[in-house]
């Protein structure tokens, strides 16, 4: 009897938690929805509030796509400008945040392709390295000895970002969305308009490619 009571209580707790989370999510989407509606009616402060809420995340995503603060600044502004201009087309089928990150991903991917075509990352790599690559590799700490500490170092962070820059656009976007921005598979599938299975397998392939790159540089 006490055992069944415990089970019932734990189920109840789970249900309450689920309801609270659902309400929180709904409140969030409602809040965004209100701001979107007000922006559509011409209230600039409403759009400012939306920007305030998402600009850090969008900037970070932009930075991961282009790997440079100046470019990231321009790209993030372009994303918000595009969102503002196209807000009238937003019908509210999905959450505003999903729609915004969809724009961000598309723009980020396009900017990345554009820069890559122009050899931006090659030139940037050469300018940043200055010295030859061997010297740099010799100075890289051995990650395998103390991964937690080493991964936090600026040098490793730069190496990881460089490795991300070398990925192809499809792999890059999925790594950024899942491993860096922390979106769920369901959200990523919705953002990229892909089946969830494809999302997972593509992420695995992207990680494998990155693994090889990092292994080559860090080991």
């Amino acid at each position: 009897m006490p055992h069944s009571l415990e089970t019932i209580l734990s189920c109840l707790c789970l249900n309450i938690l689920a309801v609270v989370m659902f309400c929180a999510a709904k409140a969030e989407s409602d809040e965004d929805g209100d701001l979107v509606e007000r922006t559509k009616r011409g209230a600039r402060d409403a759009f400012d509030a939306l920007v305030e809420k998402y600009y850090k995340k969008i900037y970070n995503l932009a930075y991961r796509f282009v790997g440079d603060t100046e470019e990231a600044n321009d790209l993030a502004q372009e994303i918000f400008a595009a969102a503002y201009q196209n807000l009238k087309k937003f019908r509210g089928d999905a959450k505003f945040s999903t729609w915004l990150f969809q724009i961000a991903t598309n723009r980020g991917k396009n900017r990345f392709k554009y820069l890559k075509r122009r050899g931006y990352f090659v030139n940037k790599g050469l300018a940043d390295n200055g010295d030859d690559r061997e010297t740099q590799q010799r100075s890289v700490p051995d990650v395998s000895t103390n991964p937690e500490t080493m991964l936090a170092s600026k040098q490793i962070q730069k190496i990881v970002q460089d490795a991300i820059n070398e990925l192809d656009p499809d792999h890059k976007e999925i790594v950024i969305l899942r491993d860096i921005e922390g979106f769920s598979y369901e959200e990523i599938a919705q953002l990229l308009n892909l089946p969830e299975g494809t999302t997972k397998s593509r992420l695995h392939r992207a990680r494998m490619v990155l693994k090889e790159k990092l292994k080559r540089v860090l080991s």
Partner: protein
Amino acid sequence: MNECERISNLFWELQEQQLGSNTERIVKEHLHNCTCCREDLKWYGITVKALINLDSVAPPEDFLAQLRSRIYSSPTPSSYLQYFKNLLASSPYMPLPVGVSALALIVVLGFVVYNNAPNPVTPHTTTVQSSLDSVVRSSALASSTSGSTGHKQSDKGGADRFLARGLESTSSNPSGPLTSYAMSAPRPLGESVTGRPLPTVADIIGADNLTVESRSTKSAVESLKKMLPNIEGRLVHERSQDGIDETILAVLIPSTSYSRLTTELIKHGTVAAGAGSGALPPTRSTTDNDSVVLYIRFVNSH
């Protein structure tokens, strides 16, 4: 696919703890015995951790101010002009196939426009055009001074009427027809957009009859005869007047070969519109949709 590959394909599930218990046992057994896969899994884990541990990059302090000035200073995209502006602004990021398609479209459009436009005067014919301009001016002058006589004679023969009409049209607008059509390939006769037949160059400038003043009429005539097969033309009639060193050729050529013919003639001397009233054959010059009959009088220039 060997076992190591199969196992490495399960790294994702292993990392995310989504393997079934049986599969997990098999994978762990394999990892226990395979150094290579163990090493790979370690690096897979490091990669994922490295990605998750990437620091969040903070935007510049004036980001919001910059953004506000960017968004609110630009006009709202209500007009078509703004729509195209936005479209063009996004063009640098268009993928390569779109660029190639756009280029191909531009080339095709250019080709269509070029084909439908009046034939331009090409640079290599500029000197020829200037020669013809002077010819037309002199013809116009001749027409204005002997206009009444020309009309009287035209009553006697159809070709004269044709000649007189041509000169009138030239003199009425001396800079018109030749400026736009001189020495370029004549527009083929055919139906225009409105259904009416389009005039040939010969019609416009009245040059279905030409006079060539050459130092050596004989070589000019021979040269013309030689080139006729090359322009798909043929000699219809030939008449010589030995006493005054004059030869008249009637040639049938495709309308499109008119410029080549006149270019060739200019090499041998001055070309003027009109074959001369006295020398014209009784048959009237004719044109149809594909070809034109030209009466060319060769006279000595000394």
